[in-house]
């Protein structure tokens, strides 16, 4: 027979106490301890790891992957496309993605995406956006992104959603490639944003990742 008095007192102590033994110590900014978001029917939170001793996972601590192909990317990926950091990405999720006016796009291949991604992102692997005419995925994807094809085969993007794209980090060329491909078919540059820091910077800040449900 369980010690019910202990059980009750335990649960009570859990909820009734007022003395702060803990406080959220690692905020995102001075004003922002964490972010709560709702995209579609899904609720999620973005916050930093509260463990002061946490370090970045080994995979993302590597400094010297072979280049090519893993080369240092420039700050400006293309003219008119602005490069953003974490705070801008969070604001983008809050103001644009939540409202249904845009998407946060993980440009990596599905294997990477499924291993953990930035909360709120969807996966459009960069190779699906290849501007190669042989690419059968391009047209349907562009249509999904609000594109319409004229008789001459050109694309127009009135009311296109705003996109923020990222991949593994500043040594990863996948999202820059995707961005340039979109530009080459006429996607408006002012609707494209490049989160250069990618997964690596996101993790270095201790920000949480989600394992997407299939």
């Amino acid at each position, binding site marked *: *027979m*369980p*010690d*019910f*008095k*202990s*059980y*009750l*007192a*335990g*649960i*009570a*102590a*859990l*909820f*009734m*106490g*007022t*003395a*702060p*033994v*803990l*406080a*959220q110590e690692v905020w995102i900014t001075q004003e922002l*301890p*964490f972010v*709560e978001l*709702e995209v579609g*029917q*899904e*609720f*999620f*939170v973005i916050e930093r790891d*509260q*463990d002061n*001793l946490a370090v970045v996972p080994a995979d993302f601590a590597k400094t010297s992957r072979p280049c090519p192909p893993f080369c240092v990317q420039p700050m400006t990926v293309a003219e008119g496309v602005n490069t953003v950091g974490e705070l801008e990405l969070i604001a983008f999720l809050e103001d644009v993605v939540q409202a249904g006016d845009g998407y946060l796009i993980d440009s990596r291949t599905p294997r990477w995406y499924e291993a953990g991604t930035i909360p709120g992102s969807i996966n459009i692997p960069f190779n699906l956006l290849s501007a190669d005419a042989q690419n059968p995925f391009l047209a349907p994807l562009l249509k999904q992104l609000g594109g319409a094809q004229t008789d001459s085969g050109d694309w127009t993007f009135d009311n296109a959603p705003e996109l923020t794209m990222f991949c593994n980090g500043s040594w990863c060329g996948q999202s820059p490639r995707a961005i340039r491909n979109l530009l080459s078919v006429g996607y408006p540059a002012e609707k494209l944003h490049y989160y250069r820091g990618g997964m690596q910077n996101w993790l270095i800040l201790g920000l949480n990742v989600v394992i997407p449900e299939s």
Partner: protein
Amino acid sequence: MHSKYLGLCLTWAIAGGALADARPELDQSAITLPGPFMLAQATIDSLDDSELRRLNYYNRRALDALSLVVESASSRDIIEQSNVNTKFRSSISRLVDAGRRSGLPVETVAMHFVEAVTEEFGLDFMERVGQVAGGLDVITLFRNVSTPLDPRTSTIDDGTSFLNALAEASEDLDLGKHLEAPAAENAAQAPEAPVVPVGPRPLPNASGPERIIVDRIEVEGDEWTIVVRSGDSLALIASAVYGDSLAYNIIYQANRNVLNNPNTLNIGVKLRIPKP
């Protein structure tokens, strides 16, 4: 007022579970919850979908954190255990905070969580936790929490007032005669809650070093303090004061301003000891 409801609700939960053995027709996995439980549910049901999603997100998170606490209860890695305990308490903080933002009183949130714990782990959960950890002290496992954004205060609720409220509430209860026995039992037990001593007392079966620690603790107004000497450790102090060396994290968390990590104590540092 709210404490009364919490008391009522928990008594119902415990009473219902206690009878699962005596009355086999009670399906423990689908306990029908009468009276006060309905009240708690009604408030939660009044949340809109979005708020409900948020509450359930944090509820789920707290449940998962609790699973980890149980899993690591027998672990030898105290740093990992401290992290797990900390995460659990933090998750409860956030759950309470989320409830508050939806206008739910703490008790309603607590009820919702207790129901989920019961559903997920069964009513013998606490007993199993105790067994897994070789007698892990439930009271010290669950410690006072705050919401993440609260400013720091110095009051600590020792839980006595709650137990008294529970006793009061149980006496008022009209449970119907088949449920009276367990309720009366709890009501009889509750008033025996010990009076908190002014200074710490050595626990029964305390070792020599533990008694020395207890002797050295100073009472400064409302606080207990101890000045670190050579050979001291948070685990020893926790064992002396709380009867559980695994509760060292309590002392650590209360002294983050002077301690960088729980393993390094500098001689001469004055530590604040939260009362058990």
